[in-house]
């Protein structure tokens, strides 16, 4: 959902983004580990109940209720074309902001697990297509897909 622009000051957001530069939330989506920029992560919660939208594409699982607000839920594994992994023991919904800073919208990603907060140096990132998939970087011996949530609203 689109948040009112006045909820957070633009400078506050910039500061946040600056502080959180390079810091990512590591999540498991299918077979892949994905790093979501921590600045875009609003909350990690246990997987929310999703109400399907008839006629929606496969990536859009449906709508959920989060904090009294309707929240579109996307399947992160399908977004990044990941094959299904082992059955998740504790699936989560990661509530994120997507889109450019001037028009952020809040959506939720379903992931198999939320792992940890990690710091990924920019020089460690091997650039990807430059869109939603920003690139890849080794983290803890595993190749992690670095995602660019600001590009989500533009690219898909």
């Amino acid at each position, binding site marked *: *959902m*689109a948040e009112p622009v006045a909820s957070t000051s633009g400078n506050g957001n910039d500061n946040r983004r600056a502080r959180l530069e390079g810091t990512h939330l590591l999540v498991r989506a299918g077979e892949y580990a994905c790093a979501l920029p921590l600045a875009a992560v609003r909350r990690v919660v246990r997987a929310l*109940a999703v*109400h*399907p*939208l*008839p*006629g*929606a*594409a496969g*990536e*859009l699982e*449906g*709508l*959920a*209720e989060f904090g*009294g*607000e*309707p*929240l*579109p839920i*996307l399947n992160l594994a399908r977004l990044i074309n990941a094959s299904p992994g082992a059955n998740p023991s504790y699936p989560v919904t990661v509530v994120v902001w*997507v*889109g450019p800073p001037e*028009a952020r*919208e*809040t*959506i939720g990603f379903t992931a198999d697990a939320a792992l940890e907060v990690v710091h990924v140096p920019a020089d460690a990132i091997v650039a990807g297509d430059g869109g939603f998939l920003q690139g890849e970087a080794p983290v803890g011996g595993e190749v992690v897909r670095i995602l660019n949530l600001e590009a*989500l*609203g533009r690219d*898909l």
Partner: protein
Amino acid sequence: MSVPHAPGFLLLRRAGGVWGIANAAVSGLARQNGGYRIATGGGALAADEILGVVESLAVRPAALVMRRFWPEATAGLAVHGALPVVMVDPSRPPAALRFEDGEGETDEGRD
């Protein structure tokens, strides 16, 4: 039956989703084929279940990202209780609310 032209929204369930439509847009409501037929100015909508009428809903515009994966026209999103509600634009109802082939025959009274 006639829906009183009152403020508020009519909540209904169709194809697993919860939908809302402004009462002002509803001109009639009838049972049909085990479901409901909601007459609007532009036509009619199908419903599997009528959840009720609410006085108000905090309607938000739907996220653009959402539209990328669901291009149907909508009047916004809201939440009622714990249920997310998709608001219906009566002039451009989503395909899920249209009648399927042969579903359009009424079996009860008119508005």
